[in-house]
């Protein structure tokens, strides 16, 4: 929920209209490609994740709902990796 709030706040500050969570900002023509690049940078900086080559699909970035799902999956992945590394370190 925390990730979703940050993403919603970001969209609210940058897209000039109020958005439904599942509204496709690219289909609606509300934003341009520069915004997509900024969105990738925002997500990487805000959540300390790296969008890998296979993550760079417009479907992951096209709506508040899609981006939240993507970020939460990346955070969960990082959490699992952290636990594995932590266990390895304890040994």
């Amino acid at each position, binding site marked *: 929920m925390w990730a979703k709030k940050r993403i919603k706040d970001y969209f609210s500050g940058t897209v000039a209209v109020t958005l439904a969570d599942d509204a496709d900002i690219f289909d609606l023509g*509300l934003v341009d490609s*520069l915004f997509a690049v900024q969105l990738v940078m925002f997500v990487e900086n805000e959540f300390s994740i790296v969008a890998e080559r296979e993550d*760079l699909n417009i479907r992951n970035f096209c709506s508040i709902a899609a981006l939240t799902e993507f970020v939460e999956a990346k955070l969960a992945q990082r959490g699992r990796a952290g636990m594995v590394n932590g266990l390895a370190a304890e040994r």
Partner: protein
Amino acid sequence: MKYQKIGVVGAGVMGGGVAENLAATGHQVIVVDIAPEALRAARIQIDRNLRCMALWDSASSAADHAAMLGRIGFTTDYGQLSTVDFLIENSTERWSVKREIFPRLDLICHPECVFAANTSAIAITRLAGTTTRPDKVVGMHFMNPVPRKKLVEVVRTPLCSEATLLAAKELLAQMGKEAILVNDMAGFVSNRVLMLTINEAIGVVQDKVATAKEVDEIFVKCAGHKMGPLATADLIGLDTILLTLNVLYESFGHSKYLPAGLLTQMVDAGLLGRKSGRGFFEYAG
């Protein structure tokens, strides 16, 4: 391709976009700027943009991206422009800056090299007059973001030769773009009209008639524009808007081009739009 090696003067938002577009379409590019930090920032931005090309083009690989970036040289040395086939100038929208650059390029570049001025409003004829090759000077008004905007306003001066116009169209075709040919006068078509709209939209916010978000929402939802005038201003850069309005005011002497007080204040405060992270709206990254 007829034109292989292209010189790009100015590593700001527009110069960087032109260089990225050229490299992505297979050209060798030399980007020159007097400021090393501008060159470094342009390289970082181009690297990001090329990486994010995968968002739209699933076939583009990391190797393609590296090869594209590898085709761009970044330098503070104007001398490296002596071998370019075509030159695109993108310096700051100030006559005092451009009038120094063109005679300098004239001495360095090959006599057959065409000079394209990517300027927001300064009359191309005036720039052509600072060189010994006025027949080879043409306007190329690119839109931002350059790699994704398919149409370029090409500006013909009374001195510009047909061969130069053909060369401009050919290079643009190589870049995957189309040209729309207009005659030279300050602001051409796009900015003579657009700057007034943006200035008036800023005036509306200044007079507290509506907020920036409301102004833009009216244009997006009522007029069907893809982007409102204030988001457009943020995209162009408020400093560039101010400089362009000043050029239009000086050129036509009409008070309708006088910049809104709020615009000047925002530029003074460093609120330049997307490039500074905040203008009428906020941006991250």
